[in-house]
């Protein structure tokens, strides 16, 4: 298997009140290393659910998800935490930065969590801050930054430990057009630079022209799976 993520016949059913709601219907997909792809669809189509399942934040009702041939369903909570810590980076729609930390400390945090000493990783953090263009904001706290700047910090934080996979849930939803464009450009650049696979969930049309693969979801089913080579249109 060449993929880093393999999704096999995944079903996710939620209990809503007294009724069951099926968010995903037997989804099967593979994600290649270094991919730059998106799950596209309207609200309630299952994009975020799928990202959460890949991230090990939620468990499928049936079916399996493999990360580098390891079945996530067989990992206990502690092992899942370790899986996320070692392999994944998350970017959230609402940034989810730690409010009492500075830009520098937010980006440093995942490295400390991984057992690194600050002195050993300081330069990596500074480089990452520079690569998202926030060197002059390094001491500021999230409340002192704009939405676009916060999302840059979130991206830097997700990338700093050089994970194999970045999961970004609607990363441009809270940004204006200009900032969305900058963030997407930045992520595409970092994707090339760090070779990490980026998987977005989005319903933003603008994202389409940046990704190399687009998976369309509707009512929890895959409706299309388009790929693009180079800068051509998605096929």
């Amino acid at each position: 298997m060449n993929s880093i993520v393999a999704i096999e016949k995944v079903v996710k059913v939620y209990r809503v009140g007294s009724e069951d709601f099926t968010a995903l219907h037997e989804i099967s997909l593979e994600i290649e290393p270094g991919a730059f792809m998106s799950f596209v669809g309207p609200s309630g189509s299952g994009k975020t659910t799928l990202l959460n399942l890949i991230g090990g934040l939620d468990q499928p009702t049936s079916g399996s998800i493999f990360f580098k041939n390891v079945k996530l369903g067989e990992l206990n909570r502690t092992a899942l935490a370790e899986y996320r810590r070692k392999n994944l980076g998350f970017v959230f729609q609402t940034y989810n930065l730690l409010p009492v930390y500075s830009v520098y400390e937010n980006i440093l945090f995942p490295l400390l969590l991984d057992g690194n000493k600050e002195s050993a990783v300081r330069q990596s953090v500074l480089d990452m801050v520079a690569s998202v263009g926030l060197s002059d904001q390094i001491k500021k706290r999230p409340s002192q930054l704009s939405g676009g700047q916060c999302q840059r910090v979130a991206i830097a934080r997700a990338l700093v430990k050089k994970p194999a996979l970045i999961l970004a849930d609607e990363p441009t939803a809270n940004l204006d057009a200009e900032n969305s464009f900058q963030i997407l450009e930045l992520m595409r650049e970092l994707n090339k630079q760090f070779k990490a696979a980026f998987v977005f969930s989005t319903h933003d049309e603008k994202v389409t022209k940046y990704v190399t693969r687009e998976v369309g979801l509707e009512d929890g089913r895959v409706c299309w799976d388009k790929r693009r080579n180079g800068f051509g249109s998605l096929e």
Partner: protein
Amino acid sequence: MIFNIAWKNFSRQGIRAVLNVVVTALAMIAVVFNISLYNGFQAQTTRNMIRTDVAGGHYQAPGFDILSPTEWEDHSLKVPEVLKNLPPSQKAEALVQQGQLFPNRRLYPVQLRGIDINQTLLDLPLEGLKSYREKVEDIIPAVLGIKMAQKAHLKKGDTAVLKWRDRFGVVDARDLLVVDVVTMVNSRVDGGVLWLRLDHLQDMTQRPDEVSWVAVAEFQGTVQGIEFQTVDELTSDILNLIKNERRYGKIFWVILIFLSGIGVFNTQILNVFKRQKEIGTLMAFGMTSAQVVGLFTLEGSMAALLSVVVALVLGTLLFTWFQSVGLDISHLSESTIPVHENILLDIHPGEVVSTMIIIVCIMVLVSWLPVRKITRLDPTLALRGRAIT
């Protein structure tokens, strides 16, 4: 690492952390203050009773009961030698009889309390009686407490007719002169009491050398024909009353602890509620449930420990000030509670420590419990801020 993160989180929370710490510290102070005030009330009551009336116990005429005035005449005796030989600092002889005072044409039943004027065991401001001769003359000198003087509408220098019966049942009457009106810290030896010289009262009632009781500094052993009443026995009625009060005080203490706990719980749960997304984010980054719970519990513990420090500092300042002014309980002057002066705190270190431990435990518990619940749920709920609603 967790400690550093917890400290950073806690120390940078600003006003939220300050409020959390101050509310908890004030809760501790309120609980300790309340219970110490009850302690002070009880201690002061006991002290005043001992100082002015009870001393180290009473050797009483068999059957004598201060609460049965109609039987006082029937229970007096001559002081046994073993007690008579004690120095004035070790004993105080007293004769208690019934009388009737007629101030301003009113009838006022009174307790005539004759006290050995040379005694120094009981702290009674009766110097006004010392200058009179041993033999009672035409006018009987008496000292009144302020409460008694007010009730009888008498002041220093006033006279009133006093009527009493001697040992043979013969009624006699004479003018009484108020030689002094004094402050009595124990209202039980003030209201309704006329203080006379013992030798005068013995002479008036034809009971030479007879007393109702002899207060002693300490137990002198069993004496033939006389009963010994311990301090506990002599103060049992008032101590029972205070114990009842104290029981209510303990209920109040539990309620205060409970309310403090609710306050702390509210503050902490709000804190955790506001930080649900942060908890979800930490879990998404790969923190284990145990690490997240440990982090928040550590933050709660830091707040709790800082609350203890703040409570100690603020409490010391507040209590020091309070001890210089006390609590005015003059509104109780009409009651039989033997406390007249301001109440001071009686702080028991054990109660301070236990109160602090309980509140610290509550704080740590309410830091641990909601976060533990969140981390056991699906992290996506925390990320959406819906783990606790």
